[in-house]
């Protein structure tokens, strides 16, 4: 993204001679920044390259991500690290990597459809990847970072197909779903996101930006003949500055996406000898940690990466929390506490035989571990096999809890389900089903909006107002991709409401 710092800012220099008050823009944009501005791609060609998840939203075995446009061959090269695309229309197994970090995102099938023999008539590529949210989100985000690629707008694949005379194909029944996925589903999903706080926030931004734009447009169209005062410009600048700050802050706050990319840091904590390391071994299905019947076996922090229900989890086993006499163990406990403080999720392990299953007792036992306030916790009551007799149900109140026997594996299913729920809550709104799909679009448009607002700020009030207004129009268009289009008439409505203009 073009940060304002990238933009060369010629300072106030000597005024041009003659009667020409206009002196050209006060800012320059480096050519390399330009491709990011409209989300448009390589100059020339038939247009930019679009991509979207084409399979039904929701968790599934295989997810299909489709791309169309001149950059399709390039994206296959970038993501698979091969010099060229695979042979046309043949499935090829490839390691799919994030071109920036070279980190492997998945192993999946890729297909290359050179135009015009493709669905849209343009060069197309398909990536068939595993259907977990982390994988899909990872691939979508990697695609979004490639130059010239952008998420498709609703109905865009179909529009392109039509433009290339391919729409008759859509008469085939199977493709109807695809159109629905591109339009209705995305729209519904966007709507769902638009309700609630986020929607209200975007709407407020939209109104503020439209008003700022309208006032600037009024200054351009009317100030010479009518009563549109100079102060209008200053007010617009203030509004835009505030808006820019808010949007930038909002973009930085994308913690959910970050969790999905980087993995949720879960820490196994608990008193010594309750089976914390056994839990780690059970979850990663290998003896990663040394386990022994002696308390205080684990001294250092041990970390393994896991995939639970499609969500990435970085699981740490820590030393049992107690006052230790041994200096090595004391260091282990210190590290355990440190790790606990950074946790996104705490797996508190207790000995089921030594704590009564009442909310009060469980709460007290958990509090004794001093988990960081506000961090979600899951209580794992281990050694269930030793309980004997009928199993008492875990209490409904308090933190979610589950009975488990690391020895027999009993209760593992329930624990995994509980973990997946927690992860879904941490990584995204489970109600919206597929947060990454719309969120990556949103953050992209918001990012472009903020970049345009930043350039507006750099223009100050001495340069070319038409160019400044263009930045607000650009910002407005980007925001409009999320909140809905605002046409010239809406802008004129505000102008005529706020100013006495006309003759």
């Amino acid at each position, binding site marked *: 993204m073009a940060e304002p710092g990238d933009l060369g800012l010629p300072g106030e220099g000597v005024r041009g001679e003659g009667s020409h008050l206009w002196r050209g823009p006060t800012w320059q944009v480096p050519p390399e920044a330009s491709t990011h501005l409209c989300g*448009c791609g390589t100059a020339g060609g038939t247009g930019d390259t679009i991509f979207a998840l084409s399979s039904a939203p929701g968790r599934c075995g295989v997810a299909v991500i489709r791309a169309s446009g001149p950059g399709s061959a390039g994206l296959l090269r970038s993501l698979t690290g091969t010099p060229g695309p695979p042979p046309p229309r043949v499935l090829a197994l490839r390691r799919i990597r994030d071109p920036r970090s070279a980190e492997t995102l998945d192993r999946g099938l890729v297909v290359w459809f050179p135009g015009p023999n493709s669905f849209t008539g343009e060069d197309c590529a398909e990536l068939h990847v595993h259907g977990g949210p982390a994988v899909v989100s990872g691939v979508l985000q990697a695609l979004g970072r490639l130059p010239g690629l952008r998420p498709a707008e609703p109905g865009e694949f179909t529009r392109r197909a039509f433009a290339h005379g391919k729409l008759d194909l859509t008469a085939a029944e199977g493709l109807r779903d695809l159109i629905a996925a591109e339009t209705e589903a995305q729209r519904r999903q966007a709507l769902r996101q638009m309700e609630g706080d986020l929607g209200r926030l975007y709407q407020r931004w939209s109104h503020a930006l439209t008003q700022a734009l309208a006032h600037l447009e009024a200054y351009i169209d009317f100030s010479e003949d009518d009563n549109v005062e100079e102060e209008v410009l200053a007010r617009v600048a203030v509004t835009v500055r505030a808006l820019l700050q808010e949007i930038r802050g909002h973009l930085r706050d994308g913690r959910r996406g970050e969790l999905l990319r980087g993995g949720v840091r879960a820490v196994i904590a608990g008193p010594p000898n309750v089976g914390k390391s056994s839990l780690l071994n059970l979850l990663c299905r290998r003896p990663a940690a040394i386990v022994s019947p002696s308390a205080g076996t684990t001294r250092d922090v041990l970390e393994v990466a896991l995939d639970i229900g499609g969500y990435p989890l970085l699981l740490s086993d820590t030393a049992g929390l107690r006052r230790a006499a041994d200096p090595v163990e004391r260091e282990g406990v210190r590290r355990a506490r440190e790790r606990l403080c950074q946790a996104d999720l705490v797996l508190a392990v207790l000995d089921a035989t030594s704590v009564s299953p009442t909310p009060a007792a469980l709460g007290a036992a958990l509090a004794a571990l001093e988990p960081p306030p506000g961090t979600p916790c899951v209580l794992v009551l281990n050694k269930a096999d030793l309980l004997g007799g009928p199993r008492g149900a875990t209490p409904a109140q308090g933190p979610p809890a589950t009975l488990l026997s690391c020895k027999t594996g009993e209760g593992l299913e329930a624990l995994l389900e509980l973990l997946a729920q927690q992860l879904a809550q941490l990584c995204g709104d489970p109600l919206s089903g597929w947060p990454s799909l719309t969120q990556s679009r949103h953050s992209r448009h918001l990012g472009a909006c903020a970049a345009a607002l930043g350039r507006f700020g750099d223009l100050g009030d001495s340069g070319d107002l038409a160019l400044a207004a263009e930045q607000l129009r650009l910002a407005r268009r980007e925001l409009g991709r999320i909140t809905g289009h605002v046409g010239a008439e809406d802008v004129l409505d505000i102008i005529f409401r706020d100013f006495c203009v006309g003759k």
Partner: protein
Amino acid sequence: MFLRGGCRRLPLLPAPRPGHRRAGSEAGAAAAPRYEVVVIGGGHAGTEAAAAAARGGACTLLLTHRIGTIGEMSCNPSFGGIGKGHLMREVDALDGLCGRLCDRSGVHYKVLNRCKGPAVWGLRAQIDRGLYKENMQKEILNTPLLTVREASVEDLLLKEPEPGRPGKCQVAGVVLGDGSTVRAGSVILTTGTFLRGMIYIGLEMHPAGRLGDQPAIGLAHTLEKLGFAVGRLKTGTPPRLAKDTIDFGGLEERAADNPPVPFSFLSEAVWIKPEDQLSCYLTRTNLKAQQIIRNNLHLNNHIRETTRGPRYCPSLESKVLRFPDREHQVWLEPEGLDSNIIYPQGMSMTLPPELQEQVVKSIPGLEKAKMLQPGYGVQYDFLDPRQLTTSLESRLVQRLFFAGQINGTTGYEEAAAQGVIAGINACLRVQGRPPFTVSRTEGYVGVLIDDLTTLGTTEPYRMFTSRVEFRMALRPDNADARLTHRGFEEAGCVSQQRYEQAVKMRAALEDGIATLKSIQFSISKWSQLLPGVPISNSRRSPVSAFEVLQYQDANMEILAKAIPEPLGKLAQWRELAERLKIEAAYEWCVVNQQQEMEEVRRDEALQLPDDLDYFAIDASLSAEVREKLAANRPQTIGAVSRIPGITPAAIVNLLRFVKTNHQKTEKLKAVPQSGKYFPGKMYSDKATSQRQISAEFSEEEARFVKTPL
């Protein structure tokens, strides 16, 4: 002057006498004269339409109530302004009249928005009314192939429709006030506010199109009978004041530009010496005026009437009612070099005359002003422009075109721009050639006509730059590059001389940009060469001269001083040097809009059949969407997407329906790229647009178009 090939006459018809003014009603019914194009109305739309049709090679007849009123500026004594100046440049690029005539008639030339950037410069001039009229009449009465005749038009001659096109009938000529007929290949209606025009002063009202001129009532009936949807609009004009009774002493003066900037690409300079120009003066209303207006609302029919006025404030009454307790600007504008009349812009009123006089006298500088003529309001019929195609031909009656205020617009420039397009198309229609339309990506006139024909209007439509999506590309400086080539090649309405001039300029611009781009130095080298131009260090080195030209402190003159070879000769051509500077400043924005412009063009190339019955078609469309489509009758998918409330899903479903249902009869054909030039093209060789595939739909079962009423 614009003489081109012979008059393409339709067979078996008596030859008119081109270029000769006919008087009275000499034509008998037996041998009704026949013209290829007949234009009704001699206002700003009518004159441009008639001249454009004649330039295109059609034998043209202009019918007007009075030849003496041709070129009359009925309202303000000025042309141009912000947005309007853009339209004039485009009219001029198509070889229209108003720009050239204003360069010969102005008394005060001023470029508005000078410090806001060349994309929004507003070329404007105070015009000497008498001089303009004289120049326009001279022009019109001497245009080859154009005949002018005084007559009122009472009715239209109609015949069976041409098969294969929408429309329930076809216009074949006009019936004049004396009962005689004139036959015509195409007819253009440019009757302005004269359709059932009604003038309001206070509580008085009387039928008239303009003070002292008769309204057109017979035609209004005819159009109504044919089923045209008609709406009513209102507008107004201020009182006129005697210059020698105004005290300009304490008022703010606005001097004209020196040197003045001409409107026309053909004009080297304007006719008047810079120092001979007249000034305008600014004064302001105060609370006294507000008081008079508020106390007398009961005496003001025009303001109380419910006819839709604009959202903006056309009259002083609406200003003080909607924005009370503040001063309102009044510009005192000269009406001519020798005229004693002052036009107080911003004071349009419909109060009874004696009260208007009180308002006038309450204003600083006007305490002793004598009112020569009271202000008045006009209410008039306009045709819902959604009944027109983008060539301004009506869907209901074939070969009948509409242009100007009758389509719901306000302003001379808006009228003139439509006039040129209607004139060109009426001519092309007779010649059996494809219509000439301007895309939203090519010109303000394209935006104007697309807005009108797609969205209609509920207030007098006025051009604003804020209506234009591609404002960075559609600038006053490059109107010739956008339209002159097309006008010459596709419409035949541009003279050889103008065409050659535009070709020369375009080549020079392309060469100049290429030269500037080829000169590349490191940033440190540039700092040595141009110490006054601080080039950002964050730029990638090397930097081209074209990039350097973007900087506010850089211009061709400075560059040429530093690098005389090869830039010296570029800087010497002043107009070229200025245009290169502007091209450099906007390059980045224009290039970035390419993608979006392509999208708009692509959607505009997707034609919808004219005969779709949106209520009957079996497509997944909501009732609300169907209603909107039926009311707006969009011609292209691009137009559909601009109708408020139409969802992407509805667009896709409509496409599916149209495509599958017209499959059998449909031919896929490559539509010629409408714009030979589009802004930005010269920046990138790769930006050549692909040929657009568009579905052209068979009109085998042409049905009558439903009229939205």
